[in-house]
């Protein structure tokens, strides 16, 4: 098998329908269950219509990996994804604090940090999003671009989306 190229998932929140098929696909792939809170991608709806699929952006400097005191986090050289070693992870939350978007969360049953692993190179979330024609998530080649800027808190993303969607009325709903 040829080596995999690093990839990235480009996101277009305004196209997100809120169908949450990404959560279903992700949890089926990783957990063999439909389990929204264990999904590596979580769709926030802090304001209706402003749905935000929230997941790792693979920052070029990987602050989460650097923050881990237990060497539980590493970077997959092939895909560029952050990998979590469940055995080593203590669920201390350092990676959540280090992440500019506070993306990781603690697995509700197994008590370790949950981070998108890009499904080993074939992200299931982007696949179902493309099948449905929504095009909110799409796999692209990872270049040498800046990715950290995409790692943002759902509240901050929502704050901008509501203005795009609802204009001057948007802020009333926050």
């Amino acid at each position: 098998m040829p080596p995999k190229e690093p990839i990235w998932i480009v996101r277009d929140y305004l196209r997100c329908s809120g169908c949450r098929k990404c959560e279903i696909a992700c949890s089926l792939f990783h957990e063999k269950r439909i389990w929204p809170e264990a999904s590596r991608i979580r769709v926030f709806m802090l304001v209706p219509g402003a749905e935000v699929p929230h997941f790792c952006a693979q920052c070029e400097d990987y602050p989460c990996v650097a923050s881990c005191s237990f060497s539980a986090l590493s970077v997959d050289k092939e895909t560029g994804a952050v990998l979590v070693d469940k055995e080593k992870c203590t669920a201390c939350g350092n990676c959540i604090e280090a992440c500019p978007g506070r993306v990781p969360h603690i697995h509700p049953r197994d008590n370790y940090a949950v981070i998108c692993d890009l499904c080993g190179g074939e992200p299931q979330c982007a696949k179902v999003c493309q099948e449905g024609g929504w095009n909110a998530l799409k796999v692209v080649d990872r270049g040498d671009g800046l990715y950290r800027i995409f790692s943002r808190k759902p509240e901050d993303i929502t704050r901008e989306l509501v203005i795009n969607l609802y204009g001057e009325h948007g802020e009333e709903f926050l």
Partner: protein
Amino acid sequence: MRGYAGKFLEVDLSTEKVSEAKFRDSVLRQYIGGRGLATKILWDNLGGRWETIDPLGPENLLLVLTGPLTGFFPGGRICVSGKSPQSNGVIGSTIAGEFGIELKCAGWDGIIIMGKAEKPSYLFIFDSHVEIKDASHIWGKNGKQTLKTLTRKGRAELERRNPNYGVWKEPAAIYIGPAGENKVRVAAVLGKWTHAAGYGGYGAVMGSKNLKAVAVKGTGPLPEVYNIDKVSELIDYVSRKCYEDDGFRRHGTGGGGYYFGYKTSSEPVRNWQEEWHDQKSFGVDRFEQRVWTKKYWGDFGCPTTCLKIAMPRVGPFKGAITDNPDYELEAYLGANLGLFTPEENVYLASLIDDLGICGIQGGNVLGFAAELYQRGILTKKDLGGIELKWGDANAFAALAKKIAEREGIGDLLAEGTYRAAIKLTETKRKDVTQYAIQEKGVAIGAHGIRSGEDFAKETGYACSVQAGDHTSLANLPIRKHGELTTIFYDSGVYCFFNTFSLPRDLKWKFYEAVTGWKMTPDEWFDVKGLGILQLQRAMLLLGGPDHRWNPKVHDTNPPRFFEPLPSGPYTGKTVDKKEFEKSKKEYYRAVGWDKDGVPKSSVLKRLGLEEVDKVLKRKL
């Protein structure tokens, strides 16, 4: 038991007691969940004294139930039920959203709410933790304000209880607006901003219990299923079939605003005085181009995402937000009020959602009032100064607010079209019931039967156990177009909009893959589904306390549906009374009712419903 969380939450708001209820496998196999199980719970708890139960009293139960297919079959819903303050029977009123998924992930298949809280309250559920909380800060607030507060407070509470989790998503919520608080019989239970369980009037039931909202967050997985690989495969299959129907995905039901008027002549126009129009300004393309801000909007697992978000950007109705509107609200808050612009329609739909009124029931009673104004029966003075002219969005908005607040004439109209018509007939000494386009207390969905071109047929409403509900039509033949299939959707509990292009037997396969329990069509149509139908019919006929239905009098269509259509390509067409009586008899026979419309003893006995037979014999 697969597909179920395995337990139900019981909350007594009077005593603030919270407990757990379980149902035997045999009960779940028979009644499934949602509408079916609601019917069973209501019969077992209230059936013996049904006619004495005030739907708006503390004795009524409010049921919020999922089904085994909720979260698995694409397009999850929940079913809200109880004794209906509209029909005095049982209506299974479903609403889309993540609520059912969160509830199952929290470990609950449903919530059984009884009693009445001493002060405005809301229920907060976080996995096994259940709390009755003070709602005085959101009582009186409109829909958008309520949801905003529930989202903010809900997330803060989750953060407080588990600060190390990471960022918390919002809990899912259902709530009522001011109309529900004021026990307006046309009030809905709402979700998000625009989602409503409208039929039945369960917003008023929630209000009568002093219950403003229920918010839930579940961190567990959906329940184990019998065969997860098969379930995944079926989810993909259903999704692919839906993806092929791109026209419907693109326009949702919003294409209906012009189609059902111009093409099939079955859209309510000015309180059904006509059912035809050629208002191209009401075409879905105009909505899309002028007011849609989001073209595909949906709920958990939905491949169709038929909703769209609409908001006028300029003009007097700038900033009003709703979904498409969907066809029903285009019809009832548009054509039915003589309004034909997307902006006015969006404004009224947005307002009706915010007030917590059902768009169908509300639009029907507004149209009824406007026809009485047109005929000089209701005057400007009666209406508290409102000149209720067709096409005047501001006038209708003013009246809708009066209804939600039960102010002046609004107090009477808040009782819904049927009850208002009975009272006005007394006070005005003129029969105005002929202008009430309703069925057994429930306003009729926006699909007329006179042209014969729409999917509602002549017995559709007249014989339905959910009366005017256009999603539960008693059409013939019963296996193909009748209510029994709808009962399965509402009991499974999922959205039938994702089933249009599926083979009929797929639902049984899906049910088996989830539960591991086989279901044959005969088992459903001849036994289980039919049993639920008989129970619903029994409670509808027992009715009370304010109104009871005599099939000989009330199993009919509104008088207007027997008048000829006055305009359009089907001018002159109507429902022939003799033909209707013939179809009605045929329908009665098909579902096992005697010539008077009462479920036959032999049928009830065969279905194991001897108790029901005894009660009906004694009381009807």
